């Protein structure tokens, strides 16, 4: 039986320590106890090695600070002035520890080598600034450590600058513990390495930071509290995984939260509460570490005017941001002492200063962070407290809600200051939106409704309304801000999930947006929002789809197909149709409104639409024809609506059947429901006698039905009929023009021809022969000459861009109309 050596004993003691405290309660004091146990082991091993002279054992790094975490390395420095003695101590020390599965980081150096290592590597320097003699020749250890400390003290501002640079490198690489959802608790900004930096800075000034006037007592206490909490969390992660990992991945958060003692609340689940606490503590660390560095570096310029009230606090920070300066300690002290009531009563000067901060981009965002850390931002924006440090759980976001909002505003400010030369949509949007204040506020508030109680968009719009009203923002800007918050998902959701070739969808988007300026605002917000979400959110994939949507909606505005007025008119008309159909079941009315294209409601009188609703309510049989005729807009004209199952050529058959029955078509509009029922509306008059009797309508229905069934040839009958009537005396030339710039979805073909019986039949059956769909026909007759416009699409529902097909259409129409 072998007697357990010191290393095995340490292993047992650490296991006992692990069991002595709940997994989530291994804080600062437990870490100190752990370091003490390691000390005892090292001393025992050293004494077992014969405690040779000329050697000192120094604890460095976390172990040196007595912050030894469960799975962290044991960092050891062997200082010597006798290389052989050092080598034997190293063997006697390291092998037992390694055998007991400890990871020991070690360095073997003379005091002179210590100074050289410190000069060469900042990491080695700071590790030795944490140094603490554990065993061996104390004077040797002191000699080595004193030299390292003296090097830092000889130029404290220079040392602080190196700490600042290193912190920036770490922040760029590991991000921040103050808002990232999977923070690196050790290396992340606001993490344990930043806590440790306070100790290094204190070594550099040769005194405790609070005693030395660098930190106020409150700041020092905040950092201490944060350290204890972050050690608890990181120790919890290590104990759960058994590894020295510092990254708190999402998977571990529920377990760590439970162990640390968080419980689910209605608007904040336990893992979110854990993360929120980490963010709050890390913000304290970030802020205090930054203050300490800047106060020691001491190159911040004092403000040109001291902050005293709500406006001048913001103005002084804006001034610093615009000059690219860090706020001086004296400025921050004055900001903290300023009279800022809770909540702030906004005035013009406060608003102007706040917007200056938003406009200042990156530097302005840093100042918002400062306001947040000092605890003032919530006084200016009471709604901020509910999103402050709030984690977002989805596959895209990496930051808290508040950090995301600040970043989005920053990105938008950058876009306003310097647009993306490769994005013409962005450039046009910036030119259109002349309300940059509203844009920045909209970006800052777009997710303000994410307070943990579902449906954030609607709630966000209400909170944004309250917020801008409290700020005293004028009506047009305030309306745009609320609109941006309420509709910030419209473009990305529609573009990525809906069919962008659906005309009604685009008309709906255009109606909701209303103006090019609002469209531009939503585009800029969508881009800034995606940029702020994570590096992968504004992908070419997403950008292409969103740009396609914006371009199509913009063209709808350009053509006047939809806009604020038309949107209001459309809403008004559908509302009136609903009123007129009060006697019908609501579900049927909803169905009708959804079934019909938007263009139908814009083109149709509500009273007629209500009649149509009744006419097409019952399912339409395959060969069924329904008609209804009422008095037309002029005397002796009729408006007749024809309902039948849609099929290629239907419009031409209706036109032919009307011609056969002696009915002249003055105008025609063809609509198709989303379930394939044609509803075609004609303004007609009797060709020979003013009155069109019911008998004649009946005959028309019969002719049309027999044509649909295929039992008669309309073509032969119309030709027969035509033979009895003379051709026009002065044959006018046939003119045919095609336009592809009038409509987003249809090619417009304009046909001018001398009037004759069955002319519309001839034109539309030519289209049917070529598998073209007529979506709208405008027919006008002047003095024996007809000028008709047809909105047509090809068999796949597209505009006709193929020049061969356009030539074929032209030739076919001429052949038929000139015969």
């Amino acid at each position, binding site marked *: 039986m072998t007697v357990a050596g010191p290393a095995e004993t340490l292993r047992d003691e650490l296991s006992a320590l692990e069991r002595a405290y709940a997994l989530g309660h291994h804080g600062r004091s437990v870490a100190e106890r752990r370091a003490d146990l390691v000390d005892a082991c090292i001393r025992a091993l050293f004494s077992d090695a014969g405690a040779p002279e000329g050697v000192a054992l120094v604890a460095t790094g976390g172990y040196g600070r007595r912050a030894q975490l469960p799975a962290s390395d044991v960092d050891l420095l062997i200082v010597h002035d006798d290389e052989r003695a050092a080598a034997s101590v190293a063997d006697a020390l390291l092998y037992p520890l390694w055998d007991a599965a400890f990871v020991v980081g070690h360095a073997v150096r003379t005091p002179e080598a210590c100074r050289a290592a410190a000069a060469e590597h900042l990491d080695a320097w700071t590790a030795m600034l944490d140094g603490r003699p554990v065993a061996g020749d104390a004077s040797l250890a002191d000699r080595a450590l004193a030299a390292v400390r003296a090097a830092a003290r000889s130029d404290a501002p220079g040392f602080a600058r190196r700490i600042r640079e290193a912190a920036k490198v770490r922040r760029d690489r590991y991000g921040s513990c103050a808002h990232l959802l999977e923070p690196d608790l050790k290396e992340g900004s606001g993490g344990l390495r930043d806590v440790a930096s306070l100790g290094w800075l204190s070594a550099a000034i040769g005194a405790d930071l609070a005693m030395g006037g660098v930190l106020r007592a409150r700041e020092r206490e905040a950092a201490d509290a944060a350290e204890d909490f972050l050690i608890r969390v990181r120790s919890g992660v290590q104990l759960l995984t058994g590894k020295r990992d510092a990254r708190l991945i999402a998977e571990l958060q529920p377990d760590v939260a439970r162990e640390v003692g968080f419980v689910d609340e209605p608007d904040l689940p336990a893992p979110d509460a854990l993360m929120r606490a980490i963010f709050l503590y890390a913000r304290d660390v970030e802020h205090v570490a930054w203050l300490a560095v800047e106060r020691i570096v001491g190159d911040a310029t004092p403000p040109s005017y001291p902050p005293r009230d709500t406006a001048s606090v913001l103005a002084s920070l804006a001034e610093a941001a615009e000059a690219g300066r860090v706020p001086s300690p004296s400025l921050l002290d004055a900001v903290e002492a300023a009279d800022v009531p809770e909540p702030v009563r906004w005035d013009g000067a406060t608003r102007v200063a706040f917007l200056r901060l938003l406009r200042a981009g990156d530097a302005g965002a840093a100042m918002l962070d400062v306001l947040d850390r000092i605890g003032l931002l919530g006084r200016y924006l009471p709604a901020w407290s509910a999103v402050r440090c709030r984690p977002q759980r989805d596959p895209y976001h990496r930051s808290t809600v508040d950090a995301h909002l600040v970043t989005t505003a920053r990105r938008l400010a950058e876009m306003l200051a310097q647009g993306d030369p490769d994005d*013409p949509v962005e450039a046009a949007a910036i030119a259109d939106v002349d309300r940059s204040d509203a844009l920045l506020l909209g970006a800052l508030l777009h997710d303000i409704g994410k307070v943990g109680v579902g449906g954030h968009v609607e709630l966000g719009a209400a909170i944004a309304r309250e917020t801008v009203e409290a700020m005293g923002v004028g009506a047009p800007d305030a309306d745009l801000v609320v609109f941006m918050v309420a509709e910030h998902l419209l473009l990305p959701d529609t573009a990525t*999930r809906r*069919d962008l070739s659906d005309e009604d969808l685009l008309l709906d988007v255009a109606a909701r947006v209303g103006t090019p300026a609002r469209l531009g605002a939503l585009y800029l917000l969508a881009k800034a929002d995606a940029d702020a979400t994570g590096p992968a959110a504004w992908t070419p*994939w*997403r950008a*292409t789809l969103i740009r396609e949507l914006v371009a199509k909606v913009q063209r709808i505005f350009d053509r006047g197909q939809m806009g604020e007025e038309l949107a209001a008119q459309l809403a008004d008309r559908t509302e009136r149709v609903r009123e007129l159909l009060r006697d019908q079941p609501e579900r049927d009315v909803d169905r009708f409104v959804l079934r019909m294209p938007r263009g139908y409601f814009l083109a149709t009188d509500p009273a007629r639409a209500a009649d149509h609703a009744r006419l097409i309510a019952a399912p339409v049989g395959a060969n069924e024809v329904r008609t209804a005729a009422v008095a037309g807009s002029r005397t002796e004209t009729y408006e007749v609506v024809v309902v039948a199952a849609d099929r290629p050529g239907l419009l031409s058959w209706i036109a032919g059947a009307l011609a056969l029955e002696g009915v002249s078509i003055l105008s025609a509009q063809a609509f198709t429901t989303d379930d394939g029922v044609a509803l075609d509306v004609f303004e007609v008059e009797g060709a020979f006698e003013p009155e069109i009797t019911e008998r004649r309508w009946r005959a028309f229905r019969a002719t049309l039905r027999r044509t649909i069934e295929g039992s008669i040839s309309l073509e032969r009958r119309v030709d027969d009929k035509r033979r009895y009537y003379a051709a026009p005396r002065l044959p006018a030339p046939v003119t045919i023009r095609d336009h592809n710039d009038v409509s987003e979805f249809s090619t417009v073909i304009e046909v001018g021809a001398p009037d004759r019986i069955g002319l519309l039949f001839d034109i539309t059956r030519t289209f049917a022969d070529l598998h073209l769909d007529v979506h709208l026909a405008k027919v006008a007759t002047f003095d024996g000459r007809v000028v008709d416009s047809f909105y047509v699409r090809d068999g796949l529902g597209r505009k006709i861009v193929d020049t061969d097909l356009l030539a074929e259409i032209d030739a076919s129409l001429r052949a038929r109309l000139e015969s």
Partner: protein
Amino acid sequence: MKLVTAIVKPHRIDDVKDALREIGVGGLTTTDVEGFGRQRGHTEVYRGAEYQVDFVPKVKVEIVVEDDDVDGIVDAIAKAARTGKIGDGKLWVSDVDRVMRIRTGEMGPDALSG
């Protein structure tokens, strides 16, 4: 075992997912992809300014299935993704040598079930 790969329009993906769920497909992988086929990339003009759209955004769906299930899955995807317009996408089936469920080490059809 077969790998069914489909490239579909982004707005059809929910329907494809629903159709596959309906016939009991337990899992699939989707990726946002860009490319071109007959529906080429093109130059867009936005209010006078030109910009190039080199690739058309699509979604790629991948499912590894047992041989007997291939026909039903191909039908379901094709039906759900079809709009009848250009750019509805493509679908292909390829052989799969080996499948492992990483967590359990189950191989072959065992790794697909459930």
